[in-house]
């Protein structure tokens, strides 16, 4: 499943469904709202384009890293501390491919999918600067 959506996802079910013929290794990445003195996070997406980009990244990852299956679910809307922001599940024959594919996907998302995060704090909020914002001022790994 490739999705940009508000609802959470059952990661256990994604993992079960990722077991295809030939699967020897599954790697899951789960990005979570961290409690950096924030109350909530609001996530905004240019949805139609973000979805297409995620689909393209999934295809690229499959081809480059010999993956058997790829799921990417990016959530939008208001999320509290501890909630899943991004869940990716990849399956492959061997662990090297699964790790490399998983990493490829998250880096590609950070680099080029039109999604933005705003940290909501007691005194308002701030938009999280992108990691790849050449000239975008401060950069911070999320």
């Amino acid at each position, binding site marked *: 499943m490739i999705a940009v959506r508000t609802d959470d996802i059952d990661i256990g079910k994604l993992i079960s469904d990722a077991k295809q013929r030939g699967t020897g290794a599954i790697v899951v990445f789960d*990005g979570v709202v961290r409690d950096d003195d924030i109350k909530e996070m609001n*996530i*905004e*997406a*240019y949805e*139609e*384009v*973000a979805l*297409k980009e995620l689909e393209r990244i999934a295809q690229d990852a499959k081809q480059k890293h010999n993956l058997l299956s790829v799921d990417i679910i*990016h959530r939008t809307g208001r999320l509290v501390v501890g909630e899943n*922001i*991004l869940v990716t599940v990849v399956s492959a024959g061997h662990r090297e491919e699964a790790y490399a594919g998983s990493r490829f996907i*998250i880096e590609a*998302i*950070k*680099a*080029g*999918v*039109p*999604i*933005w*995060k*705003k940290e909501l704090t007691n005194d308002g909020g701030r*938009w*999280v*600067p*992108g*990691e*790849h*914002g*050449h*000239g*975008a*001022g401060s950069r911070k790994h*999320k």
Partner: protein
Amino acid sequence: MNVRIRFFAQFGELLGTDIIAESSSGVALDSLIKEVASKNKEGYDAIFDEHGSFREFVIIMRNGKRLDMADAKKVRVADGDEIAVFPPVAGG
């Protein structure tokens, strides 16, 4: 001629997220965005520098495809275009 302009993240907060701009046909992309952004100084200043050029981190998509910013002055918008203007992405 109608062009849909979508601003995201801080740009959307300042300028609105989804705007239908009516304009004469053949207008340059940067002029149209400048005109729409002019309604809010803070919004305008977030996107343009003091010389009226796009700030270097601004990203523009036309119908879902990213524009080379060097072309933003040359590109003429067409009826039905969707132009998206946003700061660096921060998903994941």
